[in-house]
């Protein structure tokens, strides 16, 4: 009886076993949520953050280093019966800070350590460590912050800070955790992946009470942290610091390039501020102040920003006209008939050489007019687009209207107006030369950044080619890993022979031309330069000067701009030539000139509009100051930080571990 029910009962047993096996297959094989190491609560993944790479100048002087500090962590459940008042006074914190941080820590976990106080100096650590027996539950971990012994190049170096929410969420491979430090701007950002090093991972086991139970699988899955790679930059810190002191009280920028290699020798954006201000505990306070400064010290004026090239653009006009055959070095133009006026200079220039020397506006108006009328078309509305296309093509080769490719995270492309641009603005065939003649003297629609201006000087110095300007020439021990695009040679279409009359004019401009009073003459060095005075909508013109030296086998090309300082020869040229002098002679002999420039303050329109503003953090470095450790602005920080030099040979593994 009922033997058939055996099959039904057995089937039911087997079905249940089958369902359970399917469920186990799903849990254990298909769903991998808990299978990654460290994803479960018994194995904790500890990240070992290595020291960030240091940054050096071209002569091996330290620009950016790390200072050891201690972060204090709290494990709330261990904190019992402590004298809060004594604790607060020991660490110089308020009761309010203590209570609120403690609440946050408790909310996170009672059994796990939370960050309580960042960046205690070694001295502070030594001072408090004896007293810590009275404060159970507080522990210290070695950490670091960035320090800038040379106290210069804040904008190009950039700063590091806690990763932003956006960047945290957008990372494709999960690498950073909340609160991690990353490069926010400048080289710190550009070379983040090289500087940060390789993180170590350590798996440790904890029990249900979050007590440490030792390393997991004897460290089989752990990896060691590898210290970040050092950056070897192209910067000459002494030239840079000279620029810093010359720019005291002024706004603008200076950038110098080695023409042969495209290496950037100096790159300063002013008003100056001490990069140490944006490191460590004072970050928030100082950042706010810098941000509020009407002169916008946080804006990089070298690689970003838009300026009119002014008279420096005349050099490009002349070179393009020479190459197209519109003019010859001996071409002369009458002064009259041009809608642009002359600066005061003796008589009409009888050739290109003198036109460059005196920066004659009507002459270059005529140069551009000739260029634009080279075509066979008689209708000026039809001729203009044809010739502008040709002109645009050649001018663009100088890097105008495009990014140069410098190794910084942000670079402005600027604008070189094209046919398309004017068609859009005026309508097709609705414009001709008379609409665009301001381009002839670098005014009107054309806009560039100062890096391009220095690059023009380098292009002329090289007689027709330029190399991508760059800041870093070596990464890590073997100086490898430099992007090939940073060494790329860009040819313009200008024949080297066309440069000589221009260069001659530039040399005369410095020696007995637009640079007045011999402010540009450096004994023994033939400097070729060109002043520029770019119109500034808001007030007095910007003073611009570009130059290279020496004339034969040039070693340095430079561009300097002083905002609202007026004529280019007055401030920009002296600053540029002083920097050239420093670079080529390693010392400055024209001390009176240096003093005079240093002690002149030029307030920008913006600063004048914001009355009563007194900046405090942008005090420049001492002139010609030897590179030594900074005096930290923080009273907790050591008075003299002994920077541990990490030579490339020592592949130290100095790691900071955070929970």
């Amino acid at each position: 009886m009922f033997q058939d029910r055996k099959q039904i009962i057995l089937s039911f047993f087997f079905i249940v076993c089958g369902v359970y096996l399917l469920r186990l297959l799903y849990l254990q094989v298909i769903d991998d949520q808990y299978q990654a190491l460290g994803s479960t609560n018994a194995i904790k993944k500890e990240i070992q953050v290595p020291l960030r790479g240091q940054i050096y100048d071209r002569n091996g002087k330290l620009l950016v280093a790390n200072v050891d500090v201690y972060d204090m962590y709290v494990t709330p459940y261990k904190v019992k019966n402590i004298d809060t008042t004594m604790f607060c006074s020991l660490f110089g914190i308020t009761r309010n800070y203590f209570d609120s941080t403690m609440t946050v820590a408790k909310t996170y976990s009672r059994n796990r350590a939370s960050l309580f106080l960042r960046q205690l100096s070694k001295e502070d650590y030594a001072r408090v460590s004896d007293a810590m027996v009275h404060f159970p539950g507080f522990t210290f971990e070695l950490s670091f912050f960035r320090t800038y012994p040379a106290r210069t190049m804040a904008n190009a170096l950039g700063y590091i800070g806690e990763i932003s929410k956006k960047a945290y969420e957008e990372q494709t491979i999960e690498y950073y955790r909340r609160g991690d430090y990353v490069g926010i701007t400048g080289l710190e950002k550009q070379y983040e992946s090289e500087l940060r090093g390789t993180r170590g991972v350590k798996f440790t086991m904890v029990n249900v009470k979050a007590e440490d139970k030792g390393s997991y699988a004897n460290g089989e899955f752990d990896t060691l942290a590898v210290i970040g790679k050092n950056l070897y930059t192209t910067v000459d810190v002494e030239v840079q610091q000279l620029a810093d002191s010359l720019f005291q009280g002024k706004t603008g920028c200076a950038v110098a390039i080695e023409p042969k290699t495209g290496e950037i020798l100096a790159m300063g954006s002013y008003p100056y501020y001490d990069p140490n201000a944006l490191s460590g505990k004072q970050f928030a306070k100082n950042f706010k102040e810098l941000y509020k400064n009407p002169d916008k010290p946080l804006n990089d004026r070298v690689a970003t920003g838009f300026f009119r090239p002014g008279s420096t653009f005349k050099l490009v006009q002349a070179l393009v006209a020479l190459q197209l055959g519109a003019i010859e070095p001996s071409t002369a133009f009458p002064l009259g008939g041009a809608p642009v006026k002359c600066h005061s200079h003796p008589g009409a220039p009888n050739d290109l050489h003198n036109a460059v020397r005196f920066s004659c506006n009507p002459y270059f108006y005529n140069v551009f007019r000739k260029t634009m009328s080279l075509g066979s078309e008689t209708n000026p509305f039809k001729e203009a687009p044809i010739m502008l296309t040709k002109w645009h093509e050649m001018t663009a080769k100088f890097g105008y209207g495009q990014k140069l490719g410098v190794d910084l995270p942000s670079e402005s492309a600027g604008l070189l107006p094209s046919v398309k641009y004017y068609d859009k603005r005026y309508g097709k065939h609705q414009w001709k030369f008379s609409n665009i003649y301001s381009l002839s003297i670098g005014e009107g629609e054309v806009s560039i950044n100062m890096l391009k201006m220095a690059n023009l000087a380098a292009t002329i110095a090289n007689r027709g080619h330029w190399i991508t300007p760059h800041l870093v020439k070596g990464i890590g021990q073997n100086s490898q890993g430099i992007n090939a695009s940073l060494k790329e040679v860009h040819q313009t279409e200008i024949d080297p022979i066309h440069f000589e009359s221009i260069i001659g004019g530039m040399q005369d401009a410095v020696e007995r031309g637009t640079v007045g009073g011999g402010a540009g003459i450096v004994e023994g060095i033939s400097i070729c330069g060109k002043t520029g005075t770019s119109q500034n909508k808001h007030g007095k013109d910007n003073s611009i000067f570009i130059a290279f030296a020496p004339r034969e086998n040039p070693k340095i090309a430079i561009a300097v701009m002083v905002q609202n300082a007026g004529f280019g020869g007055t401030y920009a040229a002296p600053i540029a030539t002083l920097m050239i002098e420093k670079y080529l002679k390693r010392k400055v002999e024209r001390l009176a000139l240096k003093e005079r420039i240093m002690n002149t303050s030029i307030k920008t329109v913006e600063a004048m509009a914001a009355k009563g503003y007194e900046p405090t953090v942008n005090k420049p470095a001492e002139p010609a100051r030897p590179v030594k450790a900074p005096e930290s602005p923080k009273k907790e920080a050591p008075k003299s930080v002994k920077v541990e030099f990490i030579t490339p040979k020592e592949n130290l593994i100095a790691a900071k571990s955070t929970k």
Partner: protein
Amino acid sequence: MARDIDIREGIDWTTVWLYAALVFFGWLNIYAAVYNPENPIEIVSLSHNAGRQLIFICASFLLILIILFVDYKVYDSFAYIFYGLIILILVGTIFLATEIKGSRSWIKIGTFSLQPAEFSKVFTALALARYLSTQNVNISRFRDAFVAGVMVFLPPVIIILQKETGSALTFAAFVAVFYREGLPGIYPALGIALAILFVFTLFFPKLYIIAAILILCGLFWYFFLKRYERTQQNMFRLIAVFVIASVFVFGTDFFINKVLQPHQQKRIQVLVNPDSDPLGAGWNVTQSRIAISSGGAIGKGYLQGTQTKFDFVPEQSTDFIFCTVGEEWGFLGSLIVILIFAALLNRIINLAEKQRSKFARIYGYCVASILFFHLLVNIGMTIGLMPVIGIPLPFLSYGGSSLWSFTILLFIFLKLDAHRSYKV
């Protein structure tokens, strides 16, 4: 009775080996559960579960010898007496027991504690087999079914009074035996249908379920029944089904929210959604699932488990021993354990069908059903398919009472099987 007999004669060695495999594997996992890499323990020691389990295993060996020496007729003849005794002990336990974790089911004998509830399954099985094998007893007859029902129902009632709801539930396993012996199929089918309805009530709003039942009834009427079957009588039957189902749905809701204790409600709640209270009532479910999942396909390796080792999973050597298996041996280990159990169940059922004596057959089914029910609930709860009910995994879980009771249960059947050529 101990004549010159070879107790090995007629023993089904396949079953013995399957049993031994489970017990041995269980002990390995209990050792893993108590193993502490920082502080290695002695294997033979009374200070930890693995050491004690080793002693229980040795004692089981003695028990097996005794069972095999005793004349097979004793189990049949004395079934009612055993049953009566265990009922008395169960009742006595309520008064004599020391309270452990809110339950009064443990009797202390020296340093050891015994849980009579575990053993009551064995003797209930014997008594039930004896009754159902009595001539003229027919389970399909109401009176006989009632007597058998009372026999099965009495121990769990007492056990519930001891506050051991989990153990009491295991008596539901006997339904399978009743079914095999002729209980109309409608009853277990109804039970399964109601169980499904119960689960649905947990997950979906009541009105949706009632609407779904109504639609199913309508579809049944129009598409399943042939035209001539659509009689008024069938119509009434269908309506009755609908009404009963609806009442059951509301009744379930009422039962969960009004009748069950708060902690029992929580257990059901976390089954539906373990994340509703991951650190409280959902802790066991969540941690046990994490432990099993983290084992992956081939496991972390013996003694390498971290979830179970560091106390994230509670009751890791007793009720949640399967977590250790899952974590350290992975899917491979889980598969092997379940396959061994399936083979054992298959073997017992097949042996039971071969018995010439009705008593032995029914007892065999009792053994298989009880083992299966424990498997169903215990593994089900560790993988989140069943609510957390504290019953052990047969042969693997730590514990003298459970190991001994399952050993006795199985080996009485093997003893009966060894003599299957004799008809009682």
